[in-house]
């Protein structure tokens, strides 16, 4: 597998990452060498093999129950907001035409 400049730009869009021309060129070269390395996996016959699952001893699913956090934690969460209006998170307008 080999990546072209356009592929890297598309991936950067999917990942919501702004890349400079230099970064795009570097990424193209470096991703290529990493992909060449991991491509060795393609040669392994896995026709009869199941994908690895979670270890069986894990506690697994639990009920999704609401648990409140204390006031100190609430205030810390709010204070981490880049922008807020009293107890609410303020974000840029979301109703715009998607780029892709």
């Amino acid at each position: 597998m080999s990546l072209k400049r356009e592929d890297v730009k598309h991936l950067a869009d999917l990942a919501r990452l702004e890349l400079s021309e230099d970064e795009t060129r570097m990424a193209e070269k470096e991703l290529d060498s990493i992909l060449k390395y991991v491509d060795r996996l393609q040669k392994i016959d896995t026709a009869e093999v199941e994908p690895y699952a979670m270890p069986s001893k894990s506690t697994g699913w639990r009920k999704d129950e609401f648990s409140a956090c204390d006031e100190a934690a609430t205030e810390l969460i709010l204070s981490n907001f880049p922008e807020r209006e009293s107890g609410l998170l303020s974000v840029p307008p979301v109703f715009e035409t998607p780029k892709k």
Partner: protein
Amino acid sequence: MKSLNELTFTEARRLLKSGDVSSVDVTKACLKQIASLNGALNVFLEVYEDEALEAADRSDARRLDGKTLGPLDGLPIALKDNILYQGRRCTSGSKILESYIAPCDATVTRKLKEGGAVILGKTNMDEFAMGSSTEYSAYGATKHPRDPERVPGGSSGGSAAAVASSMCLAALGSDTGGSIRQPAAFCGVVGLKPTYGRVSRSGLVAMASSLDQIGPLTKNVEDAATLLELLQGVDSADQTTAIEEDFTAIEREDLKGVKIGLPRQAWGNGISDGVREDTEQAIKDLESLGATITEIDLPFAEESLAVYYVLMPCEVSANLSRFDGMRYGLRMQNLPLFETYAASRAHGLGTEVKRRILLGTFALSRGYYDAYYVQAKKVQTLIKRAYESAFQEIDIIVTPTAPTTAFKIGEKTNDPLEMYLEDIFTVGANVAGLPAVSLPCGNHEGLPVGLQFIGNWFREDKLLSVAGAYEKFVAMRPRI
């Protein structure tokens, strides 16, 4: 006579018990060491001097009352900066979290506090734990305590350097592909990655959730066991924590009857001469302790690194999508929505992190998901099976921890693949979820060499008893 900051847990506990020394004394000795070395080595990102002394003072008061909380009460410990400590900054080595304040404690932080440990501060790390040298920290590289021109390893390089230079008695790190064991090997300390599921990761900044595990970096095996006893256990906040018998440390003097396997795949090419010399000597030592040494075959083990460099970036790309400039961290202002995301991430994240996000995005994208992600998950099954059948014949697998000793700053930053190869012996334990520990086994040209012991799932008791017997043997051996 050792300084107080150089003590092991056992030594410190004995002095605290005798009343000759207080927790405040030990904490002050650590803070003094940090003050004198941190400027040169860049080990701690933050030090909580006042809070640490207050915590030490409370511990001393408890001890006077006969109400000690446990074996860690009053002992100064450092946290890697991807572990949440309520009300304190948690940057995870990234600029995007420069002003992030942890709203709660990680489960391991809570357990340390409940055990009376004195938390000294936060240690430096590669950004979001992605790296093998600590050079990818947004806050500057940490320097190796023995040679400031070299790296301490990574990503828990700050924690390893802190323990090696006695800035603390022990530290916590996290290990996704070798991030506890490789820096432990480089710095000459003990580093343990527990079985996947042994320790809760709630409150650990996630890198690759199917592989991440928190563990201790300590001055000896006994201290690692003490910390694991405290940290382990089921946690409703981490569904992967296992319902499993608790780990209890056992001691043994020799290794009679212990079967040690040396995977042919690991002991082939790719080990530097110095590392080979010391680790091969260590095998002779294990043999003279009574262990049976056999060469074993671990089919697909050499594919662990490739599996890791597919699965890990996939999970990274998903886990790090939360750093979008919306709910916390850096936000670039006055841009439309898409550009706010893209610019905030571009400004807040470093080169290595971006590289892994792009790689993961690729491996999960339409048309490539089956060929990369699913194929890697299938090979992971084959690797797990290989370990399963190996552990039917043997008790412990031994390999070098890293192919080299500590390298020079800047030596590997230009070639990502070269840096990734640092993980070649350590990733297998993450891919299969096995417990593994790195121990110092010698020095080459003044730099420590690490030996890795890998145990069967949830058999940290056996793993650490074998490692402990080896450690005692090495300590008794006359120095040449």
